[in-house]
């Protein structure tokens, strides 16, 4: 379980306050969707949760223990996949699995077992000896996902994982997310596709202008604004909180 309390992040170099006050709770065995407009602070929040960035203030607790970004044990528990993350194009999926497996201190037997399972699921086995750079966008994303999950993490953070993918690949990834949830993994999913949220997510967190403005179940979200869909509720929340900021600025 991840508990985020009053998280704040100001970048020293450009003095931008990317995250102002974010408080969320993400349980094990659930898919938590993180929603927000572009520039709201979702990616920065996820980078802080993944230990890539240190928060300016606030706390991130993993199972009640404060996260130490330098702790390798914690890093072994986390996987972070964004659609920006790519792998070295010169290498084959097999070579990449060996490399990243070793970085996560996995034994060759563990690497082989996990690699074969993931490659078979995502249909990579057939292309395991081909260079990553020769793959299509979908195949690249599937390979990145397989490599990202190779070390069997229990916290998985996905930043728009199905962006730009065809329907079949999207479906395959979505099915795998459900499988991971059933295994009891804690999954944080950032997306702009509200339909995906309705179909996959158990709970939702909404960030507007660096502040968390909602955290609850998918069912609670429309009810909280007396509307019928997730999309309408999201727009309502956005207008309320974004306008508020505009008035303060005036």
């Amino acid at each position, binding site marked *: 379980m991840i508990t985020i309390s009053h998280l704040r992040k100001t*970048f*020293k*170099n450009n003095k931008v306050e990317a995250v102002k006050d974010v408080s969320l709770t993400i349980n094990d065995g659930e898919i938590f969707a993180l929603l927000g407009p572009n520039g709201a602070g979702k990616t920065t929040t996820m*980078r802080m949760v*993944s*230990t*890539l*960035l240190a928060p300016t203030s606030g706390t991130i607790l993993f199972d009640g223990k404060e996260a130490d970004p*330098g702790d*390798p*044990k914690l*890093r*072994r528990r*986390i*996987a*972070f996949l*964004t659609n*920006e*993350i*790519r*792998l*070295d*194009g*010169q*290498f084959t999926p097999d*070579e990449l699995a060996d*490399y*990243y497996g*070793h*970085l*996560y*201190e996995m034994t060759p037997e563990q690497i082989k077992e996990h690699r074969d399972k993931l490659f078979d699921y995502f249909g990579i086995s057939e292309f395991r000896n081909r260079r990553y750079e020769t793959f299509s966008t979908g195949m690249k994303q599937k390979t990145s996902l397989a*490599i*990202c999950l190779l070390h069997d993490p229990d916290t998985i953070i996905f930043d728009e994982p199905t962006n730009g993918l065809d329907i079949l690949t999207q479906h395959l990834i979505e099915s795998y997310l459900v499988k991971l949830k059933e295994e009891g993994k804690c999954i944080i999913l950032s997306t702009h596709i509200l339909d995906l949220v309705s179909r996959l997510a158990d709970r939702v967190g909404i960030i507007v202008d660096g502040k968390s403005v909602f955290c609850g179940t998918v069912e609670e979200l429309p009810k909280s604004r007396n509307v019928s869909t997730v999309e309408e509720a999201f727009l309502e929340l956005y207008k309320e909180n974004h306008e508020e900021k505009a008035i303060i600025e005036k």
Partner: protein
Amino acid sequence: MYGLGKIFRHEMLKIAKEKTLLFGFLVLPVITLFLTVGMTMLTPMDQEEAEEYRMYFHGISIESYNIGTMEDKEIWIVPVAEDPQVFMKSDDFHHYDVMVDFSDIRDVKIYYYESNSVSCYLKMSAESFVRKTYEELYKGMNRNVAFREVFVEDIKKEDDSNRMIAMLLPYMLVLPLTANIANLAGDTVAGDKARGTFYQVMLSPIPPLSLIMAKILSVSVISIVSSAIYIGMDVAGSRICKAVGVRDAFGFADVSITVPQLLLILLYAVLLCYLFSNIGVLISLFCKDTSQAQTAQIPMTLLCTIASIMSMFRFGISPASHYMIPVYNICLIFQDLLNSRAKMSNMLLVAVSLLIPAVLVLLATLLSYKSERVRT
């Protein structure tokens, strides 16, 4: 630094799989070497016209004065404090000039060019001067000592082709090396950041410092290999020329290097390649993609180019302070080695002047890798 070896191996494999990088580091040095040698061979060996003739005297207190004229040119006696062997290899010592070494009064030596009528005349004048000096010296000592034979040695100053290659080689080594390192270092970190592969490793339990150090080391190793190929090909070229008895256009045929000098040269190679690589990686740590990193590295490449070009316009012996200017000093010492006039003190200065920035840049890297700009 856990994981350093694994990432280093991966980085080396990455370089090995990249044909354009291999071309830049392994093939380009060979091409530039042969271009340099070709240029040297096509350059005619013309001898400079002297404005005056000089008889240099070492080891004797003497004022500089004019002793007459020959072929409308003045003949001057000039004292010289510098070691005659070193001075004769400098550009100040002309083809017509004669050097009289009085360091040991019982073994005076006169050096001159064999096939030169002017220097033969100057040598005869020098011999008369030495004989006169002997007489005066021994008269004062009240001894009955006959005039001793003066040892006259022909000197073979390196021909212009050797000086030409000595001038060009360091420049042709430093220029592609800095450009290649800037290119590779720019791609190795900033390129990885743009591709997203940098964060994938940053997220692993591997300490970020291992990742950065592995990248610096991989760039350093390929640069050292590249330099070794360049120098190795050059030395081999000289050996072949010597073996088949043709004129050496590679410049290394008559170069003798002592063991301490060789060790220092190896140290230079390691320090210089490491320094360039570390600066390259340090700059690219703060850049978002390869093109931004390569643009940011232009000033460094430009400075190195200027420093190596400046070394080509060097005349005579450079003062010790010049051996403390990084990159420029590497070119100077390289020229000195090829012209057999490298001094150990200067070589040590070069090592120190490379070691200090290498340590400073390493410290800057250690402080920088934690920066937010590196991680975002």
